[in-house]
């Protein structure tokens, strides 16, 4: 039976006077593969950050794994890949291995030392992501696509139950993007990971995600991709042409 992993009720977020999100409510259960799409500036990334407590909400209730966000401590159950690192310094002197190892800190007691078993887990994750050959390279020397894979490896290395990915494929070439989506699909289907994916790439949402949420400051649509494509309400809202563009790119 599916378990509720994330529940957002009546979320409002404002930056100064500007309203970024209004009255957002949705729930994500175990096993879901949720695609969140919307135009630029629609508040998709803010929604994810608010769900993780990285952005303050004006009002609303957020629970993660049944616990209110401000009391949630079991971070090893969540893997997060941001759209871009807020503090990223291209000269940061850390190797791929060291960065991936950061994904194993959650839930550990200080000084959070890595064990031999952790090293093997890192090894397997590097293999899974196809980045074993660049393990000793400094992150700033890598291409955008390689950096993205390293950060995804950091997000999945701890075997999280809930993966939250914000525009993970922007720096990837089409071939790597396809591999990336199959990998996510595999993590969802074979390893039971729940996925929340924020993206512009509606074609992949249609192919892989079990649920489609269209956000434009508020939730415009929440259902399956097919329902979206056949919804008369959405045709009225977007117009036939725009709906066709979203739905028939895959």
């Amino acid at each position, binding site marked *: 039976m599916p378990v509720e992993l994330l529940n957002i009720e009546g979320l409002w977020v404002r930056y100064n006077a500007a309203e970024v999100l209004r009255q957002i409510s949705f729930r994500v259960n175990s096993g879901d593969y949720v695609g969140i799409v919307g135009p630029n500036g629609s508040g998709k990334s803010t929604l994810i950050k608010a769900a*993780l407590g990285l952005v303050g909400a004006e009002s609303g209730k957020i629970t993660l794994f049944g616990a209110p966000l401000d009391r949630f401590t079991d971070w090893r159950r969540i893997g997060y890949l941001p759209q871009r690192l807020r503090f990223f310094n291209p000269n940061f002197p850390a190797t791929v291995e060291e960065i991936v190892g950061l994904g194993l800190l959650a839930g550990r007691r200080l*000084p959070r030392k890595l064990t031999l078993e952790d090293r093997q887990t890192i090894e397997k994750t590097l293999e899974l992501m196809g980045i074993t050959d660049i393990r000793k390279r*400094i992150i700033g020397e890598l291409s955008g696509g390689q950096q993205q894979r390293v950060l995804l490896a950091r997000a999945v290395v701890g075997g999280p139950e809930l993966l939250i990915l914000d525009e993970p494929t922007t720096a990837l070439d089409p071939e790597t993007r396809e591999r990336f989506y199959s990998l996510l699909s595999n993590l969802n289907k074979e390893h039971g990971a729940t996925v929340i994916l924020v993206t512009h790439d509606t074609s992949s949402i249609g192919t892989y995600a079990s649920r489609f949420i269209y956000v434009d400051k508020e939730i415009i649509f929440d259902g399956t991709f097919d329902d979206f494509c056949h919804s008369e309400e959405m045709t009225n809202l977007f117009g036939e042409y725009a709906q066709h563009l979203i739905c028939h790119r895959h």
Partner: protein
Amino acid sequence: MGIGEILSFGFIQRALIAGTLIAVLCSVLGVFLVLRRLSLIGDGLAHVTFGSVALSLIMGVNPLYVTVAAIPLVMLSSLGILKLTEKARIYGDAAIGIVSSLGIAGGIVLASVAGGFNVDLFSYLFGNILAVGNTDMIIAAILFAVVLLAVTFFYRDLFAITFDEDLAQCSGIRTTTINTVLVLMTALTVVLAMKVVGIMLISALLILPAVSALQVARSFKATIIASCCFAMVSVMIGIFGSFIMNLPTGGFIVLVNFMLFLLAFAWKYMRKSRI
């Protein structure tokens, strides 16, 4: 004069020991501070120390204990820098600038109000590494042990917040606590080491070895180790060199550090052009 003969002087031995201990802890803290764009925090907190020492003297604290009396105010100021960057959304360098100018201005005004002090207030800003006494050495050793233990204990957390605070927060790391630990360790180092080696040297040891290490190191751990090595080598060459050439030791150590940075930079440039 040979190295053996120079080493036979007690003041050289004390300078080498205290200098090396302070160099190691400044260079370790420096890696985190430089990467977090808080390089100038050493300078800023030294100016606050200057103001705090003036305040202690005006309050009638025995000149022997004014440095210790300055600790709480300097620590509070380091937290002030942190809060300004976090809450007021001011860049780190601007926050340091605010606290720094406030510290030095406060010191000058207090000195003027008191009509001068019996001790030279400016001697607290410019320590002398060759005048290190046994008490200074003990202070340096205790400081070294406390800061190194704290860095070892919080190493992975410090690494995580230095890489990216948001990601660290989503790993359950209390970023505010770790930031607080980092600035408090820096404050303690600045205030206690300042009288021993002088602010010019502390500030240089916080920045230059870390920046040199960033040119050559190929991992985060290696950066910290390289930073320590650069700092230790510069202190040793600086003490021996300045003694032989009869030059000011603090300034000479800073110049050696700069030379090492140039060498590291040249090495990085040559390595890149070979690839």
